[in-house]
Every structure is written in C-alpha cells, then in structure tokens.
C-alpha cells in the first residue's frame, strides 16, 4: 500500500468515525464493556490459578506411621511414598522432631514441656505436585502398608479448583457472548457509514476501484473503534484491579490471599486487549461492508 493511499484511508476512516458520533460512542462503549468484563474474569481466573499453585507448594499431607513400626522401619517407608505418582516430596519427621515442633508452638505452657515423644507418631510431610489429583494421591498414601492415618485439607484444595473452573467457564461463555454482541454493534455502526456513503461507493466501483480500496477506510474505522475501546478498557481495568487489590490487602480476612501485582502482567493484558479489540473492530467492519462489495 502506497503512503498516500494509507493517508487517504486513515483520513476517511477517521472522518467516518466522527460523522456518526453517537453510534461511534456506542461501538467504542460496547467494546470497552466487553473487554472489561472479559478482562476481569480472566484476571480472577489467573489469580485463582496462582493461589492454587501457591497452595500446591505450601499444602502438605501428613501421613502418620503405624505405632508398631520402629524408627528404622518408619524411615524405610520413604521410598515407597516417594514412588507414588504426584508425590513431589516426602519428608520424614520423627516423633522427637514432632514433639519439639509442638513444644515450640507453646513455649509458655509448662504443662507441655515434659511430654514424652512416644505419645506422638513418626510421620511424613508429603507435598503433592498437582492439587487436582490430591484425593487419589491421599488414597494411594493411605494404602501404603505402615501408614496408619492421613491428614489432608481436601476442602480448601477443592474450593480453589471450583473457583478456577467456574471462573474459566463463565469467562469463556461471557467472552463468546460479548464478542458476538460487540461485532454486531460495530457492524451496524459501520453499516450506517456505508449506507451514508453508498453513492461514493457506487462511483468508486463504477470508475474501477478495487474492492480492497473501497474496503480499507471502513476496515480502518473498525480498527479505530477496536483500538480505542481496548485503550479505554485497559485503563479502566487497571484502575479496577488496583482498587480490588487494595481492598483485599486492607481486609483482615482476605489479606492472606496474595494478589498478582498488575505491573507484573500489564504487557500480556494490554496485548490481549489490543488484539481482541482489533479483531472485534475489523471483524465488525468486514461483515458490514461485505454486501456493498458484491460486483
């Protein structure tokens, strides 16, 4: 495309946009709404995912060794436990170490200081690789001969997995619906422009303008709708995210949740918004101009 052609398309696209102010505002507005809702759900899903990963790293299953096993026998279980798929590590904690840890938690309670370690069991602190398979892994650990009891916090893991799954499903459904709505509205806005300029389009066709040449100003207009919508949505998303992150940090209960800083992910967010905006805008304009280009 020659430079003068590009200047012409850019000028025509921009003037088309301003010639239907209200519809242009609606088109940009719906793109912003679409991207904002889409972005919000994606960010919630990302954070849930991150929390899940943190939980996977921090979450431990405690497998208690049968009382009848002596120290050597108990240590011998380590290989069996580590051979279970999805077990990232199995750390042996003797009765004595467990008692020391217990006592350390209550340094002021003299009543606990003289306790005999024999009242506790040897145990393994097991970390698992994939939290989603925690239930099966717990069953496999429980089935190991010499393991008397297993403690695991399945509800917490299950809760996070549910949040992530729901966020993903809702996110995908909303993205699909809003995407179609946005394309439809942008398409109708550009149809107005094309209707307004049908005489010009007819003249252009009559003098031998190619379909590409006729199409470009409208594609550029759709591109502007999309990129403008993406820019506004990005700024609003940033503000919204920071406000929610601040709210979480200031809340006594919620502050345990670590929110991913926006500055760590602004580039992928910006690129995704720009790409989605351009696809919505250009897709809408191409669908609008199609019937005017039939020879």
């Amino acid at each position: 495309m020659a430079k003068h052609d590009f200047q012409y398309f850019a000028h025509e696209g921009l003037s088309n946009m301003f010639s239907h102010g209200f519809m242009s505002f609606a088109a940009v507005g719906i793109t912003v709404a679409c991207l904002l809702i889409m972005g919000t759900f994606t960010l919630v899903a990302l954070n849930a995912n991150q929390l899940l990963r943190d939980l996977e790293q921090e979450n431990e299953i405690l497998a208690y060794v049968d009382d009848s096993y002596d120290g050597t026998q108990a240590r011998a279980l380590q290989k069996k436990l580590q051979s279970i798929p999805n077990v990232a590590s199995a750390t042996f904690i003797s009765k004595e170490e467990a008692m020391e840890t217990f006592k350390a938690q209550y340094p002021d309670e003299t009543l606990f200081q003289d306790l005999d370690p024999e009242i506790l069991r040897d145990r393994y602190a097991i970390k698992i690789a994939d939290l989603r398979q925690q239930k099966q892994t717990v069953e496999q650990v429980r089935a190991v001969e010499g393991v008397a009891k297993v403690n695991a916090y399945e509800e917490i893991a299950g809760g996070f997995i549910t949040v992530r799954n729901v966020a993903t499903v809702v996110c995908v459904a909303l993205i699909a619906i809003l995407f179609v709505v946005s394309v439809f509205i942008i398409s109708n806005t550009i149809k107005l422009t094309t209707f307004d300029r049908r005489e010009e389009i007819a003249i252009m066709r009559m003098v031998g303008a190619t379909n590409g040449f006729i199409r470009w100003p409208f594609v550029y207009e759709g591109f502007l709708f999309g990129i403008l919508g993406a820019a506004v949505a990005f700024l609003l998303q940033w503000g919204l995210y920071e406000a929610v992150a601040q709210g979480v940090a200031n809340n006594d209960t919620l502050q345990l949740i670590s929110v991913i800083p926006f500055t760590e992910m602004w580039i992928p967010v910006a690129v995704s918004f720009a790409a989605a905006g351009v696809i919505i805008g250009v897709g809408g304009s191409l669908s609008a101009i199609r019937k005017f280009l039939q020879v």
Partner: protein
Amino acid sequence: MIRLKDVEMEYDNGTKAIRGISLTIEDGEFVFLVGPSGSGKSTIIKLLTGEVEPCAGRIMINGFSVSNISDRQIPLMRRTLGVIFQDFRLIEKKTVYDNLAFVMRAVGAAPKQIRERIPYVLDLVGLADKADSYPTELSGGEQQRVAIARALVNNPDTIIADEPTGNLDPERSLELMGLLVRINELGTTVVVVTHEKDLVDHFGKRVITIDSGHVINDSVGGYVGGHIHG
C-alpha cells in the same frame, strides 16, 4: 473497441431486455444509441459497464471479455470506461476538485498526478475557475460538465453517456454534446444514449436504433426509424 455478438439478456423477473444483439463500435468512433423507453438501451449500458452479465452471447470491451470476466478483472475493465449519468451523480459534500480527485485516488493515482491532471481536465470542459465550488453552487449544465470531467479524468478509452442531456435545456444540451464531440476528436470513443432526435440529427454521427431488444437500424447521418420517446 466494443463488440457484442448474439447477446441476450433476461432479468430475474422474466423480462427479456436484449434479444440477440450484435454490433461493433471501433476505437475513436462517436455513436448515438437511441430507442424508445424499455427498448433495452439502459440494459446495454449495464452490460457494457459489467453491472449485469449477458445470458447468452459474447461481449468484448477494450480488450476484456465481459461475458466471462473474473471479479478481479472487472475493476480493470471499468478503468477503460468513463460513465456519465443523466442525474450527474456528483458527491455534493465534495468540491468540484475533490469530486475529480476522489475518482483518481480510487484507481491509485499519486497526489502529483492528481494535481497535474485535474486543472487540465477542468480547463478542457471550461470549468477551470470552478474547482473550489460545490456541485450545489453550479447550474445543471455546469454539473454535467463536472460529470464529464470526472469521466475523463482517468483517461479512459471509451466514454459512455447515459442520457447526458436529459436534465438540460436545448442550448446547454447542444453545448454539452459539442464538448463530447471535441473529446471524441481527441481520440476517445464516445457512446451516447439519448432520445433527443434534434441532437442526433444535428451532429450527423453513427446512430444505432434499438427497439424491443433488437437493433432495428445502424446508419450514419441521423435518426432513421420509428418514433423516439423519452
């Protein structure tokens, strides 16, 4: 060169507009196409500009076979034509200059070419001082001359004028037809569809008379045949 060979055209509603027309218009000719309303004149124009396709027969225009032309070639074929309409079809919100620049840009002309070509063409049609006027500020005759300038500006091989004097008084019609004759003398083929017998007789050019989708007369010198009705 324009050549139609056994061309037939029937619209979707069953109207048979053209029934086996064959004719040839050589490069540099000036031809009047005349005939009563519904005779098939407008359909011939649509066939020549590629707006409709013939049901049968062959059409060659300036080296393009319109009968089996690809979508990609249609714009290229149209660049060899300059079309003038009875209702001028100028863009009212653009100045005379911009109306011309617009169609030059549409075929990919560079700004320098546009700046050089438009004053020349406006001078040719006698509107050099109207470049910055809007169509609504011009008389009917001036608007039609802008339409001629627009048809000429891309330097086509053939000018096709569909009832170009339909909205003009007799003096302006004569003036305009004179302009088309001058353009023809510069080497451009001109095909004028009209129903104005006096004009046709005055210029003594080749006249093709169409009626009920047939060529009923093709001769030089003036109108021959039945009555011509608008």
